């Protein structure tokens, strides 16, 4: 099967080159530019500060940790890192290098906020998770970005 005939060689090579070219040329359309071979695209850093929206108010979740009551009124403890293991996204209140660029990490962070919001069912207080991110692109001054999770039901 792996010893291709002359015609199949040409067809395979054409498909391979077209596929690679398409992936490289469309990398910019993907939030994290995967499959684009854009090596060392930036030297940016980010600093994530996590907070919660509780009853319309913003409550800091220092270090990615917070406590909230469940539907039965029992106080429970939550940690961002219980769900988010990626070393960059898990670094809360710390300036870290944004591997693969700031846009990649912001896109991942948005997904992570939604994911964590979906995986803390015992939190009966938080309507949304929020991340205030200080992004320093290639040594420039810090620019603030605010990302919020989707709304979650609160009992």
């Amino acid at each position: 099967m792996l010893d291709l005939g002359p015609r199949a060689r040409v067809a395979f090579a054409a498909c391979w080159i077209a596929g690679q070219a398409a992936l490289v040329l469309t990398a910019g359309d993907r939030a994290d530019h995967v499959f684009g071979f854009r090596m060392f695209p930036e030297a940016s850093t980010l600093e994530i500060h996590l907070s919660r929206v509780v009853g319309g108010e913003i409550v800091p979740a220092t270090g990615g940790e917070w406590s909230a009551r469940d539907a039965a009124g029992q106080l429970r403890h939550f940690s961002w890192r219980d769900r988010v293991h990626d070393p960059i996204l898990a670094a809360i209140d710390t300036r870290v290098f944004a591997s693969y660029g700031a846009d990649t990490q912001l896109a991942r962070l948005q997904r992570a906020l939604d994911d964590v919001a979906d995986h803390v069912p015992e939190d009966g207080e938080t309507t949304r998770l929020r991340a205030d991110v200080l992004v320093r692109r290639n040594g420039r001054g810090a620019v603030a970005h605010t990302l919020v999770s989707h709304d979650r039901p609160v009992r």
Partner: protein
Amino acid sequence: MLPFLRRWRDEQGDVTVLGAVRVALGLLLLANALRAAGELRLGYFGDAFHWPLLPEALVASRSVYSALVLAQLVLAVLVVVGPRARDALLASALLGTYVLLCDRLEYHHNRWALFGYAALLSFAPCDRTFRVNAPPGPRVGPLWAARLAQLQVSIIYLASGGSKLLDPDWRSGRVMLERFHLYAQRESVSGIVQGLLEQGSRPGVAGLLAALAIATELFLAVGLWSRRTRTFALAWGVLFHLAIEATSRVEGFTWLTLAVYALFLTPDMRAWKLLAGTFTPRPKPH
């Protein structure tokens, strides 16, 4: 059909070097599988935040993923030792790509490149040399897939160098300058490297180094193909990648690229012939 296309399609040549590249890829696949096994011991990726390119229903469950990691380990060993190595290379490439599609947080250029080279090499007669129980037989075979793997090297350099060339921050040296600044802040940086980083952290020097990096990648994309520039391109490329290895964490990308460089070595390079002859048994005369 164009003459050069026909030449590429029908080219036959010495396949000794393909066996050496296969062994190198096998070792890198093994390292990748061992890394995945180590991470699995700490926890299954699907139990934490992950971002699949596939629909969630198609993401490997814990038991399936465990089996995949085990399969990757076995396949990598098969790639190294030789028998059924080509099947194992293709299977490794497909499984590895599937795992990347299950969680794009695990995407790294070196892993994607590794699976790409593994897929391409599986179509080349890379299992005739550098293997256990090598059967006697001709060391000549079709080289079209090896040439495609070489083209993949150029595609990667072109994509990387081209993206930098189009980026004003790269062209101005700003990215390079900031990388040096950030790297110099690490506590683990040794004295000699610290001194080099201080030199690189001067704007003029960083700008020159950025231009050199872009020019190097674009040159390597074409320079490796020309008989006149190949020797210089290989030497320059080795230095370029070793410099990156010393200053950045790129997983196995340095060793992967240097391994695939072997495909550019031609039989007229005596050093390579001597090396290959030392480690490979000669086929018995008929």
